[in-house]
């Protein structure tokens, strides 16, 4: 009978059947997809109400410029603003009051309304009047064909970045897409190591404060108990990752069909953050090209290394967390030991984010080799094609260190779980390692 298997099974089943796990696992992809699609969807809905805007133009120059749109109807009015203000006029939504030549005095126009003027309306007004003023100004220079000249001199430039494959084949690449992909994976691995490492610590402390450990270690080696817990929780993490991946993909496809929005998932993400009116085409010319760029990132390789680094990094940190959980009696005492680990993790995260600018620089290079930071920093470098010898060395170092830390942590854990009362210091914990 395999003891460690039993422990893994219990840890795994107990956690994946928890309501909080199910909720988080199944709700988050929905939230994520909703965050992308709902604003897109909402922005396509126009109010059916047509609002009337009264234009009171003292100059008579501007009133005729306003064309009715789907949502707004402009009427020219001869009444004064005061007349409107005194009377009840429900049918008019806002008043456009222009008192003078706007080129000379830009403050001579204002929008009045009993309600908050929507941004859409003021943008529309700004656009109309702005364009007119621009033309007026140009005309005032008295240069023939100035408008055409200016139109022609507007040049948009965006350099293409092209990556040479091993076979010399060219493919378009985008450092921005690579960076964003790397960043997503970096945040994901940081979050998972922290979340599941803390879960291991909680579990160890629960067993210790329940006083069940001594019952269990009389039939199971403490090492098996610790590893069973770490591995069981690791599977929980992988399950969650897997479900998130599948669910997000399915939901994205489903939403695309449902909403009829013809965009690929990554593009949707970019669009959702972009404000209306912001020109995304400066970054990526069109969807097809973006798709081509995304295809240059080797997602199979990325996913594979993500799993490899997650397991290695998780083993390393989770066993440290287990050692901490075993040595203390209560939550408050963990702070002192948690602090250095948290600082290390946050440092790794920052190193990762700064490495984004220069993914082959010395900071990125060293931090992706040092085992305590490599799982996080390497994620940002991966989409930029890291040399294989570096990947191999980094993985070897990570797994070597993990095994060492697991061994040391097991020694501390074995003594710690049976020690009550006194809070140990680092010196004492080092002594525990030497105990037979």
């Amino acid at each position, binding site marked *: *009978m395999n*003891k460690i298997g*039993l422990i893994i099974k219990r840890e795994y089943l107990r956690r994946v059947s928890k309501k909080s796990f199910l909720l988080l696992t199944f709700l988050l992809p929905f939230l994520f997809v909703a965050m992308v699609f709902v604003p897109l969807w909402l922005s396509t809905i126009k109010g059916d109400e047509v609002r009337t805007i009264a234009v009171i133009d003292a100059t008579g120059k501007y009133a005729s410029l306003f064309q009715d749109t789907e949502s707004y109807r402009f009427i020219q009015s001869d009444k004064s603003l005061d007349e409107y203000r005194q009377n009840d006029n429900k049918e008019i939504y806002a008043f456009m009051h222009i008192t003078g030549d706007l080129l000379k005095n830009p403050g001579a126009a204002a929008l009045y309304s009993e309600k908050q003027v929507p941004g859409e309306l003021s943008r529309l007004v700004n656009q109309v009047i702005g364009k007119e003023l621009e033309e007026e100004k140009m005309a005032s220079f008295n240069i023939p064909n100035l408008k055409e000249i200016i139109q022609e001199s507007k040049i948009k430039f965006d350099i293409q970045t092209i990556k040479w494959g091993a076979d010399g084949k060219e493919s378009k690449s985008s450092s921005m897409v690579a960076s964003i992909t790397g960043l997503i994976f970096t945040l994901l691995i940081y979050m998972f190591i922290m979340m599941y490492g803390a879960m291991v610590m909680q579990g160890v402390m629960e067993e210790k404060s329940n*006083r069940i450990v001594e*019952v269990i270690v*009389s*039939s199971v080696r*403490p090492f098996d108990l610790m590893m069973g817990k770490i591995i069981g929780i690791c599977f929980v993490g992988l399950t969650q990752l897997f479900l998130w991946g599948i669910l997000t993909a399915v939901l994205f496809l489903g939403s695309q069909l449902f909403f009829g929005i013809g965009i690929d998932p990554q593009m949707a993400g970019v669009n959702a953050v972009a404000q209306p009116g912001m020109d995304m085409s400066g970054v990526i010319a069109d969807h097809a090209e973006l798709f081509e760029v995304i295809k240059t990132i080797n997602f199979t390789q990325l996913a594979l290394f993500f799993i490899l680094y997650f397991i290695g990094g998780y083993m390393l940190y989770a066993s440290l967390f287990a050692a901490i959980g075993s040595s203390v009696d209560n939550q408050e005492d963990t702070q002192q030991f948690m602090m250095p680990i948290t600082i290390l993790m946050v440092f790794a995260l920052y190193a990762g984010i700064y490495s984004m600018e220069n993914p082959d620089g010395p900071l990125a290079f060293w931090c992706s080799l040092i085992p305590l930071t490599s799982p996080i920093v390497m994620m940002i470098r991966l989409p930029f094609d890291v040399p294989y010898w570096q990947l191999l060395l980094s993985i070897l170092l990570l797994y070597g260190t993990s095994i060492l830390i697991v061994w040391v942590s097991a020694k501390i854990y074995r003594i710690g779980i*049976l020690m009550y009362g006194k809070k140990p210091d680092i010196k004492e914990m080092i002594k525990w390692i030497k105990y*037979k």
Partner: protein
Amino acid sequence: MYFLETEDVVKQYSGHLALNKVSIQVPKGKIFGLLGPNGAGKTTLIRIINRITAPDSGVVLLDGRLSQPDDIYRIGYMPEERGLYKKMKVGEQAVYLAQLKGLPYGTARKRLIHWFEKFDIMSWWNRKLEELSKGMQQKVQFIITIIHEPPLLIFDEPFSGFDPVNADLLKQEILELKQDGRTIIFSTHNMASVEEICDEIALINRSQVVLSGDVTEVRNRFKGNTFLLCLKPSAHAFETNSCQYSILSDETDKDIRNIRLRKDTNISNSDLLNLLTSQGEILSFSEELPSMNDIFINTVSSSKSTTI
């Protein structure tokens, strides 16, 4: 034949010697009391027997041969500090813990149902542990300890947390286990229960065995030549001044006069009795053995004074 022996077991913790050449011999099929004040090293010794920690030097022999890693499945251990998973269902975790002790799922379940029914807690099978009273949790704990039917059982302060009714139930179960031929190590501070159920004892104080042997033999060793004499009260004077004995106490309770006396060492019990028969109507005459409680206190405090 000893089922379990430890030979010169030494365990050193940082700056503190927990066990100093501790040797105990536990006979097969007997109840062995492991006694000692708090912090004497009992729990450390038990953990070494359970292979939870390893001794710095010395050996543990089980059934006459060196203890092996797999021997932990031949031991049932109920620690003093015991607990279970609060949020887990009682039956489910009992099966889990039994499986950890090497029982296959089906056997574990079958035996657990048998024991749960015996202890009348079957209705709690699907309840979470935290819903159970402390006494019921202890019953579950006891069942888990013995579920794999090990030949050696170790109970560390088994009666703590039990009410008198359940403590008695537990005592009966322990005696039944002895009937089955199991060897039992019993660590406790409760000296009354030691006299009642232990066959042999070892008293550990300050990391060393200071006293060991058969319970009756140990009590005989410590006897102070005191006797309890019960007489029918009468006008007849009792000779209180004698060079053969001295009176320790003299009380009359209703129609029995209880006299505790200490005899002189150079007179035999029969001679003393002869001397006494002439002094009144004797109802009973018995030698008083010291209680384990007195022996415990005496030994512990005297070893303290000698070492200081």
